[in-house]
């Protein structure tokens, strides 16, 4: 299993399907908005706006998930040196999100 699905293939699949589903969400949101002729800007609570925002949130999450996947794969391969390196990257990103809240 692991030989067929190397880390490269796993990451490629995650990034490919992740970006496409995020894009599909954004595209769907804006297509609905354009068809409905009422743009999301005028009514932020509309469904199209919510779908597009979900897509954007997914875009931000995607690289974080990528690091998480690398972390898990390295742990499973018992490569603890690189597991700790990916863990550190993950911790830095999360620290930024949680401690970077107050606006400059």
């Amino acid at each position, binding site marked *: 299993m692991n030989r067929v699905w190397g*880390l*490269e*293939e796993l*990451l*490629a*699949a995650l*990034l*490919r399907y*992740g*970006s*496409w589903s*995020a*894009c599909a969400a*954004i*595209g769907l*949101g*804006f297509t609905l908005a*354009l068809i409905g002729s009422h*743009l*999301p*800007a005028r009514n932020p609570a509309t469904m199209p*706006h919510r779908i*597009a*925002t979900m*897509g*954007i*949130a997914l*875009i*931000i*999450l*995607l*690289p*974080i998930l*990528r*690091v998480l996947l*690398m972390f898990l794969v390295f742990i499973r391969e018992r490569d603890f040196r*690189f597991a*700790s*390196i*990916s863990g*550190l*990257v993950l911790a*830095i*990103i999360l*620290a*930024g*999100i949680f401690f*970077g*809240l107050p*606006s*400059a």
Partner: protein
Amino acid sequence: MAGSFIVWLFAVSVAASALGGMLGMASGIFIVPLLTMFGHVEIHTAIGASIISVIPCSCGGAAPYLKNRLTNIRLAIVLETATTVGALTGVLLAGIVPVPYLYLLFAVILFLSAHQMLAGAVIRFLSPRTKRHAFGEIHCAWTRLIRIERLVAMSRCLISCASRTLRHAAHVWRRPDFSVIRYRSGVLKIPAMDTAMRLPLKVSSATSNFMIGVTAAASAGVYFMRGNIVTEIAGPVAFGSVLGAIMGARILLIVPNDKLRLLFAAILVVLGVQMLLTLFGVHLIKGSL
């Protein structure tokens, strides 16, 4: 905001991202000037949109590279410890450093990178014997400059994150230093890996592309929490960027390295000139939309 504006944003993003993905460069470098100069988008919104556009550009472009085994994953994750720290430092510093200094710094970096890329390209076009004499001087100057930058960046790295891993990744000299400008990752990283680590351009391109997503996500998380990411602007830009990135990645596998370098250098010079002109308040083209 009209529907045509969304279509315009989309079209600009496809073009910028195809170019960016082809060069392994973050497309934000084109998107921020275009959005602020022609689209009259507020600068923070433009930066937020560009950060978002960078992520699918990186992820969309990374998949083909990964399948072709061009990406060095382990190198990428080691370097990311520094790039994420750099990105967060940048988010903090961007609020402190005055905007004109950011423009100047960015223009200088663009020129330096262009010169560096061009020197490498010209060297390869000349015969191996003449190149050493003709470009030895330039190369020496560069090596000296890089060494100074490395010292500055290293000291910052050690202050911000005095870990053993980071010292292990000391090759990332310049990254935290210039991270105040959010959309420069590719411009710095490719020449960095190309000249300092002597990786083939395609490998450094692919690895850089792979890393940019995580680096951008570190800043994007903060921007998203602060509410600087506007769906109406970031959405079409991100959507267009993915299409462009995949187009660019396909082209990169066909086009030879040296031609790519020349194109890369030319674009960097044009952007640098534009940044300098903006710094001095000169607007050659006043667009309206």
